[in-house]
């Protein structure tokens, strides 16, 4: 089930809100159990058989959390349990996500003919597995208490707002909130507002610019991609992935607030970054900080000299790439950021002042080219696409380009404008003391929300990119 669907909006969400705030209002434990059941239902609706993978992950990590809590003063035991935790969770993710890829590569490198099993990827496995690891490690580090009640751990791992596409909520962020959160109408209202913003990002912008990206990549498959369309497609995909993913994060954060949870931000206008280092501080923040705190720092971070720091950075970016998918395109994509971030660090480009336009241009160029690689099914296809972007002189402007501009120019312009903090700044402007622009924006927001529902009623193109991760 996706948030931007009629069944979620008209059946699931009202039902959960109704029971949560009426029938189960007086008892936090029952509320949590109800949210857990709803979350498993939410997950099971899309992937019934994989509910058991999710439940077993919750159960095993709950037990590991209890054990590590019991032996928290015995370092050796703790390290052993941490090792078990990592092996167990990464095994799950390896089997479902990377086994086929690994075997394909073994066959190709060693010329073997190992039979490759067809394994379906459970939706959101990378997200809930990382949350599960976070639970045990945070308990070990004393950043959150071990839950005696397995339902609470299960709720933390499988809470439907963040279950299938993040943000990756750290246990330390919500450990207190699970039992002691404070719902209020102000928080609820803020959640509704955030949900609507995310919904608009997803349905009105991401889904429409996605069509342009699909046209471009489709044209490439058919061998008639023009230079202009290649650029337009790459820019459209750049907008799509941002509005798709940040829209989903907004909806998740908003839904969390509706039930009294406060999640951390996951995006902060990444496309205004002046370096790729800054970009990754603004893009998918929960993943970046997860890798920093659970991989980079435990590996030693920058404490053991430059060579070790670069090695650690390399590992983190290779893993970041791999986390996004079992394909060399993702690994290379991650490593490109390793190179750019390392160079920025080496030459202190990320701390340089001035040349803002040039730095933003460099950052966005790298990011856009990175997304081309990210979107392509293979490195060859990505290189071919990039070649057309720079050297496709044969057919510079074609009908596909003009037609896409005619049909989708508004979405592209709106996408570019709203990927900057301009709306946020405008909302603070006051007109004639009485009415703030924010009120007008709120009214516009609700009207656009109705328009977005009309897009759903019409059954418009509605994919979700980050479900695959």
């Amino acid at each position: 089930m996706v948030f931007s669907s009629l069944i979620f909006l008209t059946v699931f969400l009202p039902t959960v809100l109704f029971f949560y705030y009426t029938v189960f209002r007086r008892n936090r434990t029952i509320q949590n159990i109800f949210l857990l059941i709803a979350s498993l239902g939410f997950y099971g609706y899309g992937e019934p058989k994989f509910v058991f993978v999710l439940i077993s992950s919750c159960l095993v990590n709950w037990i590991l959390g209890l054990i590590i809590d019991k032996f928290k003063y015995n370092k050796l035991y703790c390290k052993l349990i941490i090792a078990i935790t990592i092996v167990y969770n990464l095994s799950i993710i390896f089997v479902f996500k990377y086994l086929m890829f690994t075997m394909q590569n073994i066959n190709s490198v060693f010329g073997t003919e190992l039979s490759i099993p067809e394994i379906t990827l459970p939706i959101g496995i990378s997200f809930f597995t990382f949350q599960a690891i976070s639970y045990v490690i945070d308990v070990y580090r004393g950043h959150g208490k071990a839950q005696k009640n397995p339902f609470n751990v299960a709720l933390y791992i499988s809470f439907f707002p963040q279950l299938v596409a993040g943000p990756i909520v750290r246990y330390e962020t919500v450990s207190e909130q699970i039992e002691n959160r404070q719902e209020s109408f102000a928080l609820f209202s803020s959640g509704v507002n955030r949900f609507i913003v995310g919904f608009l990002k997803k349905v009105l912008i991401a889904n429409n610019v996605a069509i342009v990206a699909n046209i471009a990549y489709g044209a490439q498959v058919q061998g008639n991609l023009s230079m202009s369309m290649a650029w337009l497609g790459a820019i459209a995909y750049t907008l799509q992935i941002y509005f798709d993913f940040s829209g989903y994060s907004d909806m998740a954060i908003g839904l969390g607030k509706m039930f009294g949870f406060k999640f951390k931000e996951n995006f902060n206008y990444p496309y205004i970054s002046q370096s790729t280092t800054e970009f990754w501080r603004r893009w998918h923040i929960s993943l970046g900080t997860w890798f920093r705190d659970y991989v980079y720092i435990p590996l030693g971070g920058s404490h053991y000299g430059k060579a070790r720091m670069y090695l650690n950075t390399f590992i983190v970016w290779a893993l970041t790439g791999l986390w996004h998918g079992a394909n060399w395109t993702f690994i290379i994509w991650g490593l490109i950021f390793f190179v750019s971030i390392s160079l920025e660090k080496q030459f202190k480009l990320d701390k340089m002042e001035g040349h803002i336009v040039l730095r933003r241009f460099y950052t966005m160029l790298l990011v856009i080219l990175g997304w081309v690689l990210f979107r392509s099914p293979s490195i060859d296809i990505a290189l071919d696409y990039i070649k057309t972007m720079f050297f496709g002189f044969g057919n510079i402007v074609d009908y596909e380009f003009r037609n896409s501009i005619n049909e989708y120019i508004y979405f592209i312009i709106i996408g570019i404008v709203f990927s900057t903090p301009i709306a946020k700044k405008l909302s603070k402007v006051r007109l004639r003391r009485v009415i703030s622009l924010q009120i007008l924006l709120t009214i516009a927001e609700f009207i656009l929300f109705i328009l977005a529902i009309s897009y759903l009623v019409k059954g418009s193109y509605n994919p979700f990119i980050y479900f695959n991760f």
Partner: protein
Amino acid sequence: MKFKKKNIEAILFICLIFSLFLAVSAYNLYSIVRGISLGQDTVQDSSWQKRIEYRVYNSIPGKTVFNEIFGTAQKLMGKKVVMDMAYGSIYKSKYGQLVFPVNSNDAYIDDILNRMEILNNELKAEGIPLLYVQAPYKVPENEVQLPKNSIDFSNSNMNKLLAGMKIRGIDTLDLRDYVFDGHMTQNEIFYNTDHHWRIEAAFDATWYIARYLNNKYNFQINIEKYSNIDNYEQRTYEKSFLGSQGRRVGKIYGGLDDFTYIIPKFETKFLLTDNNGNESIVSEGSFEEAIMDKTYMPLDKKDLTVNRYAAYHGDNRELIFDNRLVEKHKILLVKDSFGIPVYSFLSLGVHETRAIDLRLFKSSVSEYVKKHRPEIVIVLYNIDHIGNDMYKFEGDV
């Protein structure tokens, strides 16, 4: 101030989603109690999730309002391609006409041709000719009307089908050759908001069919009846019709069509039998009295939801037009909705016109022919039925 503003938005949000929830629940409950299908049956082969989503989609109230909101936004943005739940895309042609794209149906064409060949052989054995009449589709072959690079295979499908029939010795009459020969404009041939041809174009095509029957099969239909439109009253309701395509995008985006009923001024006398398989309803009187269905002829032109096209007696299992003032000829028309005005007008020049719709008529066509002995069997289809039961001439065996 900030607090209140967000509260208002939250209250509106809650009101909206709970209203939709109540409406969807109530409608689903009602449909279950009354045994009404909400369209979930049409996706029977899909997953249970798809069926649930289809139920929810079909019980969303105020779809017309949502359509208008959606259509208005598309119009404001000047869009020529509009996304649609059922059809993927709806195109707006350069003449302002809405068009459903037709997919490539190569996979079904051989099967259809085999079925047509079997029917032809069975009819041949009875000494009865078979004529396949290809109704035109909204996309002409000789002019690019859709946004460039639109994906539509209607003409390609029709060409393959007709070529295959010729190879198999089945007589064909391609109405595209006539209706698109330039004597009518695109907007005169098709409604802007509906996939059907205009009643005027169907009337004109009936003359062409009748002439073909006279020339090729030695019929003696009085084609003078069709050649002078002055013999008919043309009752036009301006801006009164929002067709099937228009209903999907709203009247603001799609506009409204004028609708003209064509009714003979000359004396007519009919006995029309409408046999739904369980009972027969018999109507008697003039063309207007016996054939025209008044349900679809509201005087109030503001009633846009009425399918005025069905006024010529549409969507029936079996219809028998008995023209009491004409003595010659018996015709069987196996038809889709494009045939609705054709059988009505054709019946003006033929003594007995039978029309069956294979979506509802589930018996063998050749057995039916053996029983009723028409002089010719005409299969008149539009191209967007490929892949469904329309070619199941053997019936449910």
